[in-house]
């Protein structure tokens, strides 16, 4: 049972939102003992306190190199260009209906949002925010966006994450499906065409949603995605699957 899915505690969550954001601002490895159990009911609201377990980017990612990458053993794509989170406050993920997401995902937040393939370190302006693209390889099959944001001392809740990667194929690969899992909702485009929407208050599950049959064309393909989350740990995992369910691996992945 998590407070972030608990309606009656949402007011409490709201009142703490500022504090939660502050939590993401890493302040060092200070270990505070959790308070003793309170006899009776729930403990009272927690006072802002230092992060006990600071996040280091190196625990979850390595910088992407100029060398090409390949999908991992299970076909997961680990190389991504990730944009620092765009602020999109939401008290709860229960608002992530299809129509809400259409509006949230189709809104133009930054220039060339649906076409750009950025360079590592390139910046974009979103309202008053100046956000940077990071070329990274995930150490895990999934891309832990929460840790990405926390390590960069950015907001971790109430956020939108944009991700993009380049897939090079030696030949046309027909009848493949994009398979994605995300926490929470997400949308994915292949070569500019919307191919998958994961809606609702959703946790990341491998092979949660699959696209219709697609063709990965010979040469360069651009896969772009956006993940939205209110409270909770954001992440995603993406791979392509053949008709028989096996992972597509005869491709290379790069960020330039």
């Amino acid at each position: 049972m998590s407070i972030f899915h608990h309606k009656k505690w949402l007011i409490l969550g709201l009142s703490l939102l500022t504090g939660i954001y502050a939590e993401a601002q890493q302040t060092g490895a200070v270990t505070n003992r959790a308070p003793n159990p309170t006899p009776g009911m729930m403990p009272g609201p927690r006072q802002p306190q230092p992060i006990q377990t600071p996040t280091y980017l190196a625990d979850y990612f390595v910088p992407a190199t100029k060398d090409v990458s390949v999908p991992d053993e299970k076909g997961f794509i680990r190389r991504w260009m990730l944009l620092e989170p765009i602020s999109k406050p939401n008290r709860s993920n229960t608002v992530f209906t299809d129509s809400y997401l259409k509006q949230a995902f189709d809104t133009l937040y930054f220039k060339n949002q649906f076409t750009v393939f950025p360079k590592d370190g390139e910046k974009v302006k979103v309202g008053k925010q100046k956000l940077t693209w990071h070329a990274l390889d995930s150490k895990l099959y999934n891309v832990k966006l929460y840790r990405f944001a926390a390590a960069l001392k950015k907001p971790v809740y109430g956020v939108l994450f944009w991700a993009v990667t380049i897939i090079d194929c030696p030949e046309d690969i027909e009848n493949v499906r994009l398979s994605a899992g995300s926490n929470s909702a997400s949308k994915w485009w292949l070569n500019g065409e919307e191919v998958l929407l994961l809606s609702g208050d959703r946790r990341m599950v491998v092979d949660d949603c699959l696209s219709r049959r697609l063709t990965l064309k010979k040469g360069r393909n651009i896969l772009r995605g956006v993940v939205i989350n209110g409270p909770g740990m954001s992440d995603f995992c993406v791979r392509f699957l053949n008709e028989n369910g096996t992972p597509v691996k005869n491709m290379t992945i790069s960020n330039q």
Partner: protein
Amino acid sequence: MTMKTRAILLGATALMSVLISQRTFAQIGTPYIHDPSTIMECEGKYYTFGTGGGGLISEDGWNWNGGAERPGGGAAPDAVKIGDRYLIAYSATGGGLGGGHAGRVLTMWNNTLDPKSPDFKFTEPIEVAHSLDDEDCDAIDAGLLLDPTDGRLWLSYGTYFGFIRIVELDPKTGKRVEGNKEINVAIDCEATTLMYRDGWYYLLGTHGTCCDGPNSTYNIVVGRSRSVTGPYIDNVGRDMLEGGGKLVIAAGERKTGPGHFGRFVVADGVEKMSYHYEADFDQGGRSVLAIRPLLWKNGWPVAGEAFKEGTYEIESERRGYALELAVDFVRMQGSMHRFWEKDAQPMTPLKSQTLEDVIGTWPKGDINVRIGDYMFRPHQKWTITAVPEAGGYLGGPYYKIVIEGTNRALAATADAEVVAVPQFTGAPEQLWRIDQLTDGTYRIMPKKVPGTDKELALVSVGDSTPTLGLFDMNSDNSKWNFHDR
């Protein structure tokens, strides 16, 4: 009676019939709880503890009310009986409580769960697991398993905030086994627990959105492993560390948000699962305790059906024949058609035989009961309705079983046979306990067999002969099915 009145009465009867055929029962009393612990039986009573402290007590497993006591508050406890003592695990921090995820799982003992007992005293809580504020775990939602194969004690805990973890505890002290390291076994769950059956360990977790009343999408899923420490794999081969999980139960029957699974083995072949519904629409959307049969299919746990009142054929699993009154078979009008010859006559559906067609041929007193070929005749159709005021058993009320359209009731006799008495009186021998078994068939037992304290069940001693006997899960003689046909 005017035509209008008759029409109204007929309409009302039809409506009642529809209502009865659809009615299932939640627990009665005040079964309001969130995150119930595994049900414990202690000195003839049943107990479950919930979030926020306290819990429910039931004397029969059907009527639940507040009164159980658990100090420490916090969220989502679990309980296990070890020897003569009860071990409770709970967390009073973490889970976002107070805005953070620094959690501590604690255990404490009690010799009894009856707060009125002079022996009722919890030991000082001991921390057995914890999570720091921002690590990939959230140390709440404890689940306990005493491994029946070797007596080792395991604790699972965690929420959506990172991993579900397992640690080993000392079953003598309830403390963490010294040097034991936590093992990550799942993501995307909370409210986990473990169980063991036939060489498999099962990790049950709750997916979906908690605590959102009628909109809660909470649902219970499961993965299994040959080792208690995992990997826990679902039915399509997906690791629960990848978010895998096979559904056990989701919303239904005007109730949303099932979560916090607990298993209770009543007897060989009779198992129950306890959980909560986040919102019972028929109880104002309150969070309630739920208990239903736990079935096993192909090595996977499956939520059984809460018994639905209605009119049924009661089919013997032994031969497939149906329970019926031992009365004359009344032949219906009509004859065989020469199907190879063309018949120019318009087709007219046959009418079903009605109670009025045959009841005059039945004796007025007790009528013996036998098992025969099912022909959907009135003497084979049994209307089964709950008798809530008669109490119940773990997960269900007692039922009366009468011939449709009559008050003629199935009853146990003092010589351990069955008979249909002319009038249902509510006597214990006319009240029946119905448990869905782990294979999906049913056990049917009278509340009381006159003159004995033995617990006997309805059995098929021959293809055509019912009687009362000891229940045997390994015999189809002991099993029955209900069909609406």
